């Protein structure tokens, strides 16, 4: 086993032993149990497609920032930088330690699934989904979305922290979290474009025809018309390519040899390709008023 894997193992253990993570998991368990008791269909769906990992994921993000910045915060760079396992290899280890988050995420989703026991149809909408629409049980790709999103986000955090090695990394992450947690989640993708698939957690919600609410159609309503269960498979591939690209970008901070540049180009091309594929394959309804 190489030093990178051994270091990743140590970092993983430290992540899993973080008391804040236990608190986050306890809060998640309470959320899941409360949903189970209330039979809230929309929330059940959200929890299963990865939203149950929002709080533990947030703790993992903070932990990963701190562990990636540790040598800087504790003023040990002078020592660490003259050890045989240099910063580039330590970067890989920090990213690999996200595997612990993936496994914990998968276990959390599995536990959520067992507790909520969703039928083929979870139920009808009870909030922003019309009662006439059945909410389907998430397929395997959607169940895996949360854990793989953790992988992508933590790898992204490592890259961001390597390039912005201060607490300022919190700012862009806070914006992303706000968009993901509030706009794309709680209100089921208010921005109706397919580009919502570019964010880690896709709801799979498909919007129906655009109903104009005024002469200029500036005010409108986008009713939900169904669920897209095909794009999530592409989305998983997209998230994995984002994770790989993030690791390569993080490594580029301290190692810029030909091989690293090659992987940067290949992985970035895969991200762009899969981002476009997601737009192409996702179900889209053209607004009536937009038609000629």
């Amino acid at each position, binding site marked *: *086993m*190489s*030093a990178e894997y*051994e*270091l990743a193992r*140590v970092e993983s253990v430290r992540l899993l032993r973080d008391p804040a993570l236990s608190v986050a998991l306890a809060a998640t368990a309470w959320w899941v149990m409360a949903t189970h008791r209330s039979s809230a269909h929309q929330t059940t769906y959200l929890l299963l497609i990865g939203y149950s990992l929002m709080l533990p994921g947030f703790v993992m993000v903070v932990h990963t920032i701190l562990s990636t910045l*540790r*040598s800087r915060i*504790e*003023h*040990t*760079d*002078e*020592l*660490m*930088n*003259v*050890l*045989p*396992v*240099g910063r580039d290899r*330590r970067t890989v280890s920090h990213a690999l330690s996200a595997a612990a988050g993936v496994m914990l995420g998968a276990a959390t989703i599995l536990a959520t699934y067992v507790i909520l026991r969703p039928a083929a149809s979870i139920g009808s909408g009870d909030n922003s989904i019309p009662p006439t629409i059945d909410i389907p049980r998430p397929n395997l790709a959607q169940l895996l979305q949360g854990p793989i999103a953790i992988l992508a986000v933590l790898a992204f955090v490592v890259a961001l922290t390597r390039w912005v090695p201060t607490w300022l990394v919190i700012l862009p992450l806070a914006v992303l979290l706000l968009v993901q947690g509030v706009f794309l989640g709680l209100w089921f993708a208010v921005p109706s474009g397919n580009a919502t698939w570019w964010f880690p957690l896709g709801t799979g919600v498909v919007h129906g025809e655009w109903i104009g609410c005024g002469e200029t159609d500036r005010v409108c309503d986008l009713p939900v018309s169904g669920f897209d269960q095909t794009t999530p498979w592409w989305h998983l591939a997209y998230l994995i390519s984002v994770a790989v690209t993030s690791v390569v970008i993080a490594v580029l901070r301290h190692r810029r040899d030909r091989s690293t540049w090659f992987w940067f180009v290949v992985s970035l091309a895969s991200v762009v390709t899969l981002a476009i594929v997601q737009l192409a394959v996702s179900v889209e309804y053209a607004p009536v008023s937009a038609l000629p």
Partner: protein
Amino acid sequence: MSAIVQIRSLSRTYGRSPALGPVDLDFGVGVTGLLGPNGAGKTTLLRILATSLAPSGGDIRVLGHDAGTPSGRLAIRRQLGYVPQELGLYENFTAFDFVDYVAILKEHVDRRARHDEVRRVIAEVDLSDVRSKKIRKLSGGMRRRVALAQALLGEPTLLVLDEPTVGLDPEQRLRFRQIISRHAERRCVVLSTHMTEDVEALCDRVVVLVQGRVAFDGTPLELAGKAAGRVWVGDRLDPGAAVSWRTGEGRHRHVGDPPPGAELIPPTVQDGYLLLNGGVPEGASA
């Protein structure tokens, strides 16, 4: 003495300010002490030696590996133990976990063998009793010993220690000398210090740096010899002395140009260093 470290025309500047050199030095098996006032270039030299800082000019080779190339630096780092001057440790780690973490970064991959090695170096610096304590709860001297423990991992060929005895109590300093002298039997140790008694007790060679240049290179005895005939004691303060202080016996110890009939005493390394350090030019009364 076969040279483990070879330094040729080594120099370093910060902006336009020269900090070191050019210097030519060879270090072999044994303990070499670096003495010098603040800003003399000791830390700069040690940081270059530890591959933490790139020189502005010149060459440095450790066991034949060129520190100027990435592969050479990696080879040097695999043979290096380093205690930097600015002592940063992971406060939330236990002493064991921190040394273990460094051991991984030194490519000790096999877990069982690594843990044995970590326990060995922790025992060597006499920290076995507190190895499970968080570093933030350790005293300054204990933290110094944690830093030394990580440097000893893998019995490195080259040990670079920047002011390693700061914060150690007398007992611990003796223990430190014991550890270092044992390691120096087969390895190269280069340490910087302000404590001339450490040099006297520990080093078989001393290099004095003044304003980035080598002002002296020899044995501690030779450095002390620089002050031969220029150290005396008297019952009262001698205004002609360059440096004077009252000893515990109530007499005054003087360094400089003694007056006729002065009670001369054998000089120490500190006396030689004081004279060499520009404070007391030879043949001049300050």
